[in-house]
């Protein structure tokens, strides 16, 4: 016996459904071809991207010829860097340790504040009245150059690593807070549904349903922030915010290129060690 659905035999309805789900013949033919001409919107997109790049390169005075002409000067500068002068190795190590300490404290404080801010900036967790202010705050911080933030704290607490730490902490909220929030938004909904189903409170849903899932991403981004802060600490020193940056500037101003080269080599070694250690930790947690 044929069951009738909405007045039409189901068999007939099924055939109609099958026709409705078939691909348009022209689209089907296009997909079957091994090689096909790209769609016009793709070509337009590529054209627009190339035009944007040329416009930007002209505006920024980007010139390969000029780079070629100046290559000899660059070579001359590099030859002046060698041989490296490790006579002040003790001072370099001391400043690098200070830079590392700044990065550790700045990253720890930055990650904690970023996490707090991220709870407010995750659309799946925060109510609208909290979500938008948190996002705007992070946008404002992100748009401020690190050196401006550092100068602000240097004027507040004076020269030294403390100003650098404060600059790193605040700068981290803008950059990593947004990534933290997006990591929490991207977690699988399944465990959240399960937590709601057992009658868990909002705080418990976050604690057991969201944070454990986002934790590998949060840790990975924190390590990335730490690597960035070690490099960043060398720049913050330029404005007197502690670390090895100030010694770098001084060496350049005094034309002590051997000493400068020794510092650069030490920084490269430190950053490489941190990169490798971070990679090992990332592999362990993911």
């Amino acid at each position: 016996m044929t069951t009738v659905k909405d007045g039409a035999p189901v068999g007939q309805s099924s055939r109609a459904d099958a026709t409705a789900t078939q691909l348009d013949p022209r689209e089907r033919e296009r997909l079957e071809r091994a090689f096909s001409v790209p769609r016009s919107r793709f070509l337009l997109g590529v054209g627009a991207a190339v035009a944007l790049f040329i416009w930007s390169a002209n505006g920024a005075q980007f010139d390969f010829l000029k780079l070629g002409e100046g290559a000899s000067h660059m070579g001359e500068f590099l030859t002046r860097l060698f041989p490296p002068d490790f006579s002040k190795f003790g001072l370099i190590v001391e400043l690098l340790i200070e830079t590392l300490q700044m990065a550790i404290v700045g990253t720890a404080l930055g990650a904690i504040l970023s996490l707090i801010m991220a709870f407010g900036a995750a659309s799946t967790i925060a109510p609208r009245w909290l979500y938008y202010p948190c996002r705007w705050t992070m946008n404002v911080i992100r748009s401020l150059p690190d050196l401006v933030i550092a100068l602000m704290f240097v004027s507040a607490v004076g020269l030294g690593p403390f100003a650098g730490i404060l600059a790193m902490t605040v700068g981290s909220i803008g950059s990593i807070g947004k990534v933290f929030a997006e990591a929490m938004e991207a977690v699988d909904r399944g465990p959240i549904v399960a937590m709601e189903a057992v009658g868990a409170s909002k705080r418990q849903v976050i604690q057991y349903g969201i944070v454990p899932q986002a934790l590998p991403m949060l840790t990975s981004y924190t390590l990335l922030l730490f690597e960035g802060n070690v490099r960043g600490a060398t720049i913050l020193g330029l404005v007197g915010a502690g670390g090895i940056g100030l010694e770098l500037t001084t060496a350049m101003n005094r034309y002590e290129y051997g000493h400068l080269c020794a510092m650069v080599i030490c920084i490269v070694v430190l950053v490489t060690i941190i990169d490798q250690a971070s990679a090992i930790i990332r592999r362990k947690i993911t």
Partner: protein
Amino acid sequence: MSVVANPAPTGTASPVAAPRDEDAHVRIRDLRVRYAPDAPLVLDGVDLDIHRGEMVALLGASGSGKSTLMKSLTGFAPITSGTVRAGDVDVAGLRPRELRALRAQVGQVFQQFNLIGRLSVLTNVLTGSLHHAGPVNLLGTFRAGERRRALELLDRVGIGHKANEEARSLSGGQQQRVAIARALMQNPRLILADEPVASLDPKMSRVVLQLLRSIAREEGIPVLVSLHVLPLALEHSDRIVGLRHGRTLVEGRTAELDASSLAPVYDIEDEEDEG
């Protein structure tokens, strides 16, 4: 007693008028659900009783309203009209805090298990007691008594030896048993299992359904389970309810039903006609 509604014109088929038991643990009367004011009815006049110790299989094609019927029992679906009572609680009109208290008494088992993969099997089971845990568990610790009970429940579902492993390292069947232990951790008055074996192989499907049925029989907890495989429903349930287009099409004791009486739920006759 089994009742099969006339499978001819669905638009005119009235829901089954089976005798109703006012002592049933779950009582659903004339339930209508629509998700938006201008949306069609997802459930259209459904009646259902579930008794203690009974495992009821819910059958129906995708979109027939099975999941919505389950959601209506925990307030996750809006009740447009009709009544839904779970125990002494009328689900309609509950405030958020009351809804959370109701949900804490209803164990749920999901198709995709919904475990927190990075946490241990034991912690996943312990999350079933979250509603009763106060701020003391802020750092993720649970009381010794709860831990003991969670370990006993893992033994009950046959995977006590996996307690310390990450949930994601378990097979699908093992994960579903963890999910059942989590539901039992709630001390539930009702268990809802929404397609709990859809992601499992036939052998593991039987293990999981046998476990759910033994929970219903031995502990008296009513179990409502939605399934897609007729033989599994016929083998593992006490009663079967078949939904179609949001209405009850078939309802009866499993012993009195067979594959042919349930075929209209999935339009199987029509496919044979076409073939």
